[in-house]
């Protein structure tokens, strides 16, 4: 049986772990609030952008811009968004598993698949498996800046226009609530066929200024940027939320452990006292004898 001192030492160790996880939870909570606010601020813009684009694309010709053009798919690019840091529960594992599933389905269907990643976790995951990455970005999660997004977007758009890739799939965690993230697998390029209202189809009734070509050539890449930006912000808020609940669970587990260890400690102490008493009583009885 463990001695009193052993138990005491373990209690101390678990206590300091619980202090750390509690602090980490608090940090995650603060970061989460910030990330969530940015995400909520971003949403109306992304939504309006989508609605403007869909009303434009409904009446536009697909030939007008390379990003709208339909062409046979052969090379599919998968962009996986994870976090840079761990300790956030199953956040990264889930997304990487979903990505793997999707990639193997694509490969089975005969597509050439390339992989790009955002976040250190995804990069390391593929590196360990010896899978070549087309591109990887790290050090973004935590402070997503628009310039990071522009870098990613311009790289993707360039490869798409060069026809080195024919389709781009975006895989990321969407923020649902503090305890729930949803894995989103969505097509970034070519722009998803937009549902068109029939009366809009035949007539191009928009007036464009300066010109249709110019509007599209600035609006379409912008839309790609915005979508990536949005998914990065969603992913970040989800990450912090996941970390928050992971740390909450860890703190809880540590406290449970402290309780059971304390119980064990008290029992051991009690046993020691009882044993000592018995010795004394035994001694007294012997002297009386």
């Amino acid at each position: 049986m463990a001695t009193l001192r052993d138990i005491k030492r373990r209690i101390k160790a678990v206590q300091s772990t619980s202090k750390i996880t509690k602090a980490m939870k608090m940090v995650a909570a603060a970061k989460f609030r910030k990330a969530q606010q940015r995400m909520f601020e971003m949403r109306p813009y992304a939504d309006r952008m989508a609605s403007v684009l869909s009303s434009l694309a409904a009446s536009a010709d697909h030939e007008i811009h390379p990003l709208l053009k339909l062409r046979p798919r052969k090379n599919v690019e998968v962009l996986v968004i994870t976090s840079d840091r761990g300790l956030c529960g199953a956040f990264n594992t889930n997304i990487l598993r979903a990505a793997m599933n999707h990639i193997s389905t694509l490969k089975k269907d005969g597509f050439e698949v390339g992989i790009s990643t955002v976040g250190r976790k995804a990069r390391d995951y593929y590196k360990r498996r010896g899978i070549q990455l087309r591109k990887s970005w790290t050090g973004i999660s935590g402070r997503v800046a628009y310039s990071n997004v522009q870098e990613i977007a311009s790289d993707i758009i360039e490869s798409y226009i060069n026809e080195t890739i024919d389709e781009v799939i975006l895989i990321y965690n969407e923020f649902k609530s503090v305890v729930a993230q949803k894995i989103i697998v969505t097509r970034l390029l070519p722009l998803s066929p937009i549902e068109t209202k029939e009366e809009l189809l035949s007539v191009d009734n928009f007036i464009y200024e300066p010109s249709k070509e110019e509007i599209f050539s600035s609006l379409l890449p912008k839309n790609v940027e915005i979508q990536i930006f949005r998914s990065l912000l969603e992913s970040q808020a989800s990450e912090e939320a996941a970390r928050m609940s992971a740390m909450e669970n860890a703190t809880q587990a540590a406290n449970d452990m402290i309780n059971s260890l304390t119980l064990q400690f008290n029992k051991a102490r009690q046993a020691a006292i009882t044993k000592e008493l018995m010795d004394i009583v035994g001694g007294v009885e012997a002297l009386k004898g």
Partner: protein
Amino acid sequence: MENKLKLEIVTPYGLVVSEDVDEVLCTGSEGEFGVLPGHADFVTTLKIGMLTSKKGNETKIYFVNWGYAEVGTDKITVLADSAERSEDIDVERAKAAMKRAEERLRKNAESDFNKAEAALERAATRIQVAQLKIPK
């Protein structure tokens, strides 16, 4: 038909305004234009400039930094990189930005000439918009 125009200005940092107005004046890339209810469908890019909205006797002025405007019969949606109401403009900050931009232009580093020029224009327009008196 409803005789109002729904003005919405959104930026990546949030919704700046969403309200019904009577008239909107914008700075488009091809020059200024006004929008009244019942306007034809219209899409344009916006320059750094100002946007004025009128509702009854009330006039509001906004600073708009690049973007797009989509006009429909009863709405105008502005997607801007950034936008502020004239009262909310931080003039001190804009002045500082202007100074920085001027300095960079003076050094004349080829690489960021365009950037500095844009920054200068942004700052100058901000200050101009902030100091405009709202006509009664």
